[in-house]
């Protein structure tokens, strides 16, 4: 099935007939209508064995358990934060998910009740703070619950955050992370690509940050084409020469 990878994949529109061959099975982005298999997205048609898929080119983020997301605190009550995670519903962050209660409780002298600890934890984040959080639970009825307990989670103090199309995230990461490695190496920026389509960029200077963001925008625009890694490599090196960056 590897031979398909280098083929230029056809762009299809919703309702377009992908095949009338009954031996195929509709994969993601496709449904069966009578004898035919039709696309339900504007996307790239892709045949894998018996499956016909359509990879959408745009779409909204749907939270799933375990996703690392970047969010912004948009509301504070006495018992929880509401976090905009670029999805249909705002995420909920409760103080017991913001600090490791058991860790804190064992610290020095007097034991604190969990209520005291939670009240203390509510001071951690303020309105407008940007966070990296993990999605703990998601269902069709209630809002997604987040946590900031864990490695590399918590408040973001520095850098730039940009939004990208969610279906194009895999392209920015690349095969086995090749594209993200390229971006990191050439622009010397630190990068974090959250599943909800927000990207955190931190470079040594704003020049590098700008270059990295421009490269990401180029990837986003040309996500449906081939030879992208080479092109980005060339693009960044040219821009560096132009701007006199190392």
């Amino acid at each position, binding site marked *: 099935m590897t031979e398909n990878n*280098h083929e230029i994949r056809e762009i299809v529109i*919703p309702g377009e007939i992908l095949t009338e061959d009954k031996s195929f099975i509709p994969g993601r982005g496709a449904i*069966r209508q009578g004898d035919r298999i039709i696309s339900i997205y504007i996307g790239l048609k892709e045949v894998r064995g018996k499956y016909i898929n359509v990879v959408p080119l745009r779409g*909204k983020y749907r939270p799933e358990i375990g996703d690392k997301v970047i969010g912004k605190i948009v509301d504070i009550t006495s018992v929880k934060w509401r976090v905009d995670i670029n999805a249909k519903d705002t995420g909920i962050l409760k103080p017991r998910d913001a600090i490791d209660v058991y860790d804190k409780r064992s610290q020095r002298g007097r034991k604190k009740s969990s209520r005291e600890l939670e009240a203390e934890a509510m001071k951690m984040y303020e309105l407008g703070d940007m966070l990296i959080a993990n999605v703990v639970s998601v269902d069709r*009825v209630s809002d997604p619950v987040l946590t900031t307990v864990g490695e590399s989670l918590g408040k973001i103090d520095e850098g730039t955050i940009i939004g990208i199309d*969610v279906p194009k995230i*895999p392209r920015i990461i690349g095969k086995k992370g090749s594209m993200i490695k390229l971006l990191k190496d050439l622009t010397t920026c630190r990068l974090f690509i959250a599943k909800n389509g927000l990207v955190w960029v931190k470079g040594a200077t704003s020049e590098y940050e700008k270059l990295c963001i421009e490269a990401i925008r180029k990837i986003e625009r040309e996500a449906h084409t081939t*030879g992208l890694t080479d092109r980005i490599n060339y693009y960044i090196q040219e821009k560096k020469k132009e701007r006199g960056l190392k």
Partner: protein
Amino acid sequence: MTILIPEEYPKKLIDKNGKRLDGRALDELRPFSCKIGVLANADGSAYVEHGKNKIYAGVYGPREVHPRHLARPDRGIIRVDYRMTTFSVHERKSPAPNRREREISKIIEDALAPTLFLELYPNSAIEVYVQVIAADGGTRCASTTAASLALADAGLPLKSLVAAVAAGKADGEIILDLGDLEDKAGTADVPAAVRMIDEEFTLLQFDGEMTPEEFEKSIKLIKKGAREIFAKQTAAIKEKFDTVRKETEEENKKIEKLVPPEEKITHASGTKEEEKAGEEKSDKAEEIKEEKEDPSDTKEEEKKPKKEKEEKKSEENK
């Protein structure tokens, strides 16, 4: 004080040669062009020029429903807001929403709903804003066409695009795609929207007088016109991505000349890892859909072992 001048209509809408006021044949569309992705802040957007109509459509959502009581726990709702700008018509239109605008909003909603999978979005709303910049007869049809393109551009799953066009009667002849004067001075007007996958009508209005035979004829004309519009919708979408593709191909050639092949970084467009990451995301939505569309258990069972096999194969390949 405004002076009301009664509008004067020409006596003949069709001349001796069977041509219409603007020189069109009886079954000819006005010039039509469209574009997607025109508004940066909307989730999806489209711009349509149909004759002298100029229409923007923007899609937002699925997002929370306000006021909350409109939300449905089992499915999403679609809301369309059709508005005309004050300068879109000859005499200034009051900016206050009127009865006509509410009617058209409602019929566009009904024309688009049969193409959406609303059961995927419980408690949420898909909102479509249609703004008429210039009006010249048949705005409800052009707005439906634009709104359908904007929904597709937003990346929402759709069964099909919708193309809309009107037919009517003027000077005793059945004509396709009425202009402003033909609409006002003619004897009948049949605006309709067609879901292109099965050519079902999702909107059919009727105003005026016609015999059943003439009505049959106008339905045929509408289908013909809708197919032409649909072809242009399709071309507009594909063109957007193909132009980028062409540009990049040229760039690729340029780079190949500069960089010797050994130094190239190994790459593959759309590799397995990339797609797996994407796959995980939309799986849930797909599962729900598959259950609804294809309830037979045997197919589900067949799928699983095959998927596993595929994965094994791909591992071996590595």
